[in-house]
């Protein structure tokens, strides 16, 4: 099971609809400071159910909506879609491909979708939580966080191992 594709639209610095396909193995993203690399990681964490805007470097949830640039208006909504390949049925849905989507429209509450069907955030977290792909587990290490496990208390380390067990 792997991530095949991500589409970002109006998410942070990705004002225009941007799509990229991931391959098996080792995908490496490079680019200058501030070009949008960590924003892609934020987009993935956001769509798989990150609740804390602080860990997305924002103050309010609408901070993820593209705020505009020189001669470019702000976006009215942010949308991120992830497409997973599920031939081995590791995800608990009887479908070769699974698309999860999150949309936040200004001044409206957010919406979540699995294969086009409206769902609650919990369902996405549960679906992906079963294979260990959560926004705050050990499968995603954010910029500047590589030392975080070292500094965990013995109780926090326990929680890490409970997830691994």
């Amino acid at each position, binding site marked *: 099971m792997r991530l095949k594709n991500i589409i970002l639209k109006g998410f942070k610095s990705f004002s225009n609809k941007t799509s990229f396909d991931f391959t098996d193995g080792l995908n490496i993203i*490079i680019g200058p400071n501030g070009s*949008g690399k960590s924003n892609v990681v934020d987009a993935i964490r956001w769509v798989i159910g990150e609740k804390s805007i602080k860990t997305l470097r924002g103050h309010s949830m609408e901070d993820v909506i593209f705020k505009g640039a020189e001669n470019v208006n702000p976006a009215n909504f942010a949308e991120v879609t992830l497409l997973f390949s599920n031939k081995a049925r590791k995800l608990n849905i009887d479908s070769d491909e699974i698309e999860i989507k999150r949309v936040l429209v200004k001044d409206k509450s957010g919406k979540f979708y699995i294969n086009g069907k409206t769902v609650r955030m919990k369902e996405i977290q549960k679906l992906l939580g079963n294979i260990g792909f959560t926004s705050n587990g050990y499968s*995603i290490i954010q910029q500047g966080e590589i030392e975080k496990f070292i500094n965990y208390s*013995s109780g926090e380390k326990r929680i890490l191992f409970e997830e691994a067990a």
Partner: protein
Amino acid sequence: MAEKFGEAVKNINEYFSKTFGELFEGGEAEIKMLDSHNLLETGIDISAKLPGKKVNSLNLLSGGEKALVTGALIFAIFLQNPTPVCIFDEVDSPMDEANLVRFFRMIRKFSKDIQFIIITHNKKSMEFANTLYGITMAKKGISKVISIEFEDNK
């Protein structure tokens, strides 16, 4: 349930010994339960001794050493319970070239079964890519992606 936890910790400890030993070319590392009679609540302690050094506490380690120990820990957890996708954002930035190469060689082994998405600034790290993506901001404030695929690193 609690036994499953105890079992997992023992396994990850053994895997950690291996991943640590490979990334540091020696040394000893251990993950243990502070109170193995209380599986439901016990905390976990991690200690590591680098080759030739006598310091056991993780906190005194250098920035690059801590990053590598964390890498060893994550790979040990993957051996016990892999996730299908792993995302690293600039975890190699404190590493010197020698450590970075060992770290990416280990990633390469795991990348047969786990899909990695890694952000880096380091030219050496880029050499390990199966697929490379460049993100640019030719138009100020607006991100754009281009991808460059190599097939020769597989």
